[in-house]
């Protein structure tokens, strides 16, 4: 193995985003200087994006259990029992930084990534939603960002044939240099056929399927873990291109394979691609894994092991098959015209070993890679409480009618039709309530009376003023939107979008938002089953508004009981609750 000279290794580790003490831990785990590939693996596995090192401490406060929760956080997506022998599988994920660099592709690949998180567990995706925050439309580049993001979400979802049924959008100058693109997918699977990622079975083949590997997005996961600066222009070559057509084939091929009994474990290659999928699968299963890079399907010539391990090429999956079933499985992927390659096998060494061209490129013990991953309890500062305004003392500046007109014309309240008119919301033939039709989208389960309701919610303004109340409010709003269509709210996924966690006031926002969310979840019996954290959402030192986006899912036993927004002339309007 070619080890990096000590000085070079230290310098590179900093470039890859490892802090000095983190790098010291790498040295003590290995007991020697790392190779380039090893350093790459450590840096992505210990990035904020993959390790949740700043947020994990706080996320533990969220309630994650209920009798209907089948798998909470920790799997590729959350799984809940929805009756009739079925499970709903769902998650939300951010693609904020890539969407600023290349809005169309960034948003498109965000949708692709979250779809894979869901179908990798055996679900057929039945709906997509999104939560978007843009800057002021007059800010430089922002029109292009808005247009590109909306097109990208539509372009990907429409082509894979999963209806985009809901979402939300806000505008605020705090997002001028850092828009938020959060995508959510909901899928359905038989509740006794859920596929997990823990590898098992000494000698079992490790199989790669999907698209070929190119040099796309190398170090994307670490990019999502550092603040944006003016030189992020330089990071451009890392942009990944989405291929929704290949994703559609991958969905069909994986579901066909999942109908057999050949799969032991499966995981999508998301951020940090082959590295995170192989490390996590082997780590969870407590086994070792050996990969031969020569067998990885490659799109470009002369790729190194380092590049292949860190590539973020899209539309790829990794799985462990039962022994001797490779040919049968391969036939399915051939039918769908996808690459299929056995790239390694499981071992009992507890190590990940990467070989390429006869050389060992990496040899890392898996247990400490996980157990010694950095975990921070970063200092927090509470957001100062805002004085309560006495409405009676504030003069009416406009009069009721002009105020109403102004509100209806404001960016945050005006019609979103121009967005959802670009999203196919009916494909699948099960959409009972489309965007604009109800407080939550309602999608029926094919062949059954049952339907799912889903919504995304957050009001960043509230979270800025009082992160705890804002976090609770976002959960409560999701719950209200689900009940408003007649659904029983079951569980949520979340996407925590915040600024730089190294700043105590930002970490204070984060901690308070989690507290608020936890309180609301407990009070409403509305557990968190999956989620995603996106930190370092800042541009040149200015943070975004704290934005804990909530994706809620509920069930209706009879889709015919779904309630929409439309008022019919003969009905009375009744106001419930105190004003």
């Amino acid at each position, binding site marked *: 193995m070619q080890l990096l000279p000590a000085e070079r290794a230290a310098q590179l580790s900093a470039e890859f985003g490892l802090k000095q003490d983190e790098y010291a831990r790498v040295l003590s785990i290995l007991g020697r200087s790392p190779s380039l590939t090893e350093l790459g693996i450590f840096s992505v596995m210990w990035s904020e994006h993959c390790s949740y090192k700043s947020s994990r401490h706080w996320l533990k406060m969220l309630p994650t259990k209920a009798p209907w929760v089948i798998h909470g956080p920790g799997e590729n997506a959350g799984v809940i029992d929805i009756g009739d022998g079925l499970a709903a599988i769902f998650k939300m994920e951010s693609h904020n930084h890539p969407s600023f660099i*290349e809005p169309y592709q960034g948003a498109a690949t965000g949708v692709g990534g979250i779809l894979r998180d869901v179908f990798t567990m055996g679900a057929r995706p039945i709906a997509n939603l999104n939560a978007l925050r843009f800057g002021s439309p007059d800010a430089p580049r922002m029109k292009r960002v808005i247009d590109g993001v909306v097109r990208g979400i539509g372009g990907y979802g429409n082509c894979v044939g999963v209806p985009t049924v809901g979402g939300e959008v806000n505008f605020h100058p705090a997002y001028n240099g850092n828009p938020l693109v959060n995508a959510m997918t909901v899928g359905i699977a038989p509740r006794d056929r859920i596929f997990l990622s823990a590898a098992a079975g000494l000698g079992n083949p490790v199989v790669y399927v999907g698209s070929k590997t*190119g*040099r*796309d997005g190398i170090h994307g996961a670490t990019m999502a873990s550092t603040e944006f600066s003016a030189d992020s222009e330089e990071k451009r070559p890392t*942009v990944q*291109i*989405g291929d929704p057509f*290949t994703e559609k084939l991958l969905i069909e091929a994986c579901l066909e394979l999942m109908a057999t009994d050949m799969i032991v474990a499966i995981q999508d290659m998301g951020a940090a691609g082959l590295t995170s999928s192989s490390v996590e699968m082997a780590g969870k299963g407590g086994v070792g894994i050996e990969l031969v890079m020569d067998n990885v399907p490659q799109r*470009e010539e002369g790729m190194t092991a380092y590049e292949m391990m860190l590539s973020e090429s*899209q539309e790829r999956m990794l799985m462990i098959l039962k022994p001797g079933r490779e040919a049968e499985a391969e036939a399915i992927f051939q039918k769908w015209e996808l690459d299929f390659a056995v790239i390694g096998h499981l071992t009992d060494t507890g190590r990940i070993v990467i070989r390429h061209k006869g050389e060992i490129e990496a040899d890392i013990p898996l247990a400490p890679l996980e157990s010694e991953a950095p975990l921070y309890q970063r200092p927090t500062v509470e957001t100062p409480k805002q004085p309560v305004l006495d409405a009676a003392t504030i003069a009416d500046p406009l009069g009721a009618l002009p105020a109403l007109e102004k509100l209806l014309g404001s960016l945050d309240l005006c019609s979103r039709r121009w967005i959802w008119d670009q999203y196919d919301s009916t494909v699948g033939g099960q959409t009972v309530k489309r965007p604009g039709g109800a407080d939550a989208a309602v999608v029926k389960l094919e062949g059954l009376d049952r339907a799912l309701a889903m919504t995304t919610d957050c009001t960043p303004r509230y979270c800025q003023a009082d992160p705890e109340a804002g976090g609770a409010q976002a959960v409560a709003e999701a719950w209200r939107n689900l009940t408003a269509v007649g659904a029983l709210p079951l569980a949520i996924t979340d996407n925590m979008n915040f600024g730089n966690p190294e700043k105590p006031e930002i970490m204070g926002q984060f901690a308070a938002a989690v507290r608020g969310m936890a309180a609301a979840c407990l009070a409403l019996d509305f557990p968190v089953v999956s989620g995603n954290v996106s930190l370092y959402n800042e541009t040149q030192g200015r943070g975004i508004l704290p934005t804990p986006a909530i994706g809620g899912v509920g069930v209706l036993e009879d889709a015919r009981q779904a309630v929409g927004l439309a008022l019919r002339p003969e009905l009375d309007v009744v106001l419930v609750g105190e004003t």
Partner: protein
Amino acid sequence: MRARVTIMPKTGVLDPQGKAIGHALGSLGFAGVGEVRAGKVIELELSEADPAKARAVAEEMARRLLANTVIESFKVELA
């Protein structure tokens, strides 16, 4: 002056369209097809008569609007 701006995906950037076309040509029975790349071409009628200036204008158009230089490269030809 007529300018032609050809816009291609940068080398190394995935070209799903080119890939699919290459595949389709194969199934149509065309043998010996290697890499296929799909791009765009935009033909512009410019009132500028000076070739050097016309080229400069077309290049600026490409940089500012026609090409997405994050993922695409472009070339300007005059006719």
